């Protein structure tokens, strides 16, 4: 896989790569139901992973993130508040509760998870737990 390092090509290559990995069976065994909200993209980042999820309209206080072993759980509530008595012309956004878990192929270090929510996008940086790291064995 090409690394997305050149800013000039980053966008086109990223979009292409995102498409081609949509059919990837990489996480199939670990997914708790497809099509669950929020949609998540998983990236390899160093020897850990970055999870990026689109959750527009969900604030910091409306989301709960849990990490245990290999799995990450995102739950919360996406609410929409419109004034009473207003007439609806168009309704395309969805609201409701969400709760989904994702299993990764590595054990996650729960003490070093970084979560950032900006502009409706949640980014989780997950590192491999120390005891899950590969060790080099010297032949005696």
């Amino acid at each position: 896989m090409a690394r997305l390092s050149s800013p000039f090509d980053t966008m086109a290559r990223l979009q292409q790569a995102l498409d081609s990995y949509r059919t990837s069976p990489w996480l199939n065994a670990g997914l708790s139901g497809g099509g669950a909200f929020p949609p998540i993209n998983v990236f390899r980042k160093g020897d850990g992973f970055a999870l990026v999820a689109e959750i527009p309209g969900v604030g910091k206080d409306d989301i709960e993130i849990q990490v245990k072993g290999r799995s990450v759980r995102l739950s919360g509530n996406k609410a929409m508040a419109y004034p009473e008595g207003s007439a609806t012309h168009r309704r395309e956004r969805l609201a409701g509760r969400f709760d989904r878990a994702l299993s990764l192929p590595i054990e996650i270090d729960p003490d070093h998870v970084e979560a950032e929510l900006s502009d409706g996008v949640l980014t989780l940086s997950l590192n491999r737990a120390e005891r899950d790291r590969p060790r080099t064995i010297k032949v005696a």
Partner: protein
Amino acid sequence: MSGGQTGIRETGSKEVEESQELSVQEKKETSGQERPAPGRYFVPSTDAHETEGGLTLVMEMPGVRRENLEVTLEEGVLKVEGRLDFSRYDGLEPVYTEYNVGHYERSFALSEKVDQQNIGATLENGVLTLTLPKSPAARPRRIDIS
């Protein structure tokens, strides 16, 4: 121009069903045409509702920062364009993906009843809210019977 028309004609109020379990909406890509910035464009999911004072448009544009958002009004057409900054993906290698990313664009034809001088916009958590007040002449008035 892609996108729908939101005038102030329709008045029937609809009950909104709150789905208990949220599902993912597949992003809609805009039809191909030449654009100022390269890359894909998506149609932001939009709610429109009307009160006595005016019309409100609520558009989901996750990942768009305030400085990359452009709202223009030209000849009665309100155009919203949000561009994505792809630098946050530098050095990341996708291994599993459920959605694609791109810029957002949508246009709305405004009716003359909108006070086009006083349109307001706020962006919070990737959601753009546009308030389109009705021009004074278009506001409902109660007529007292003498």
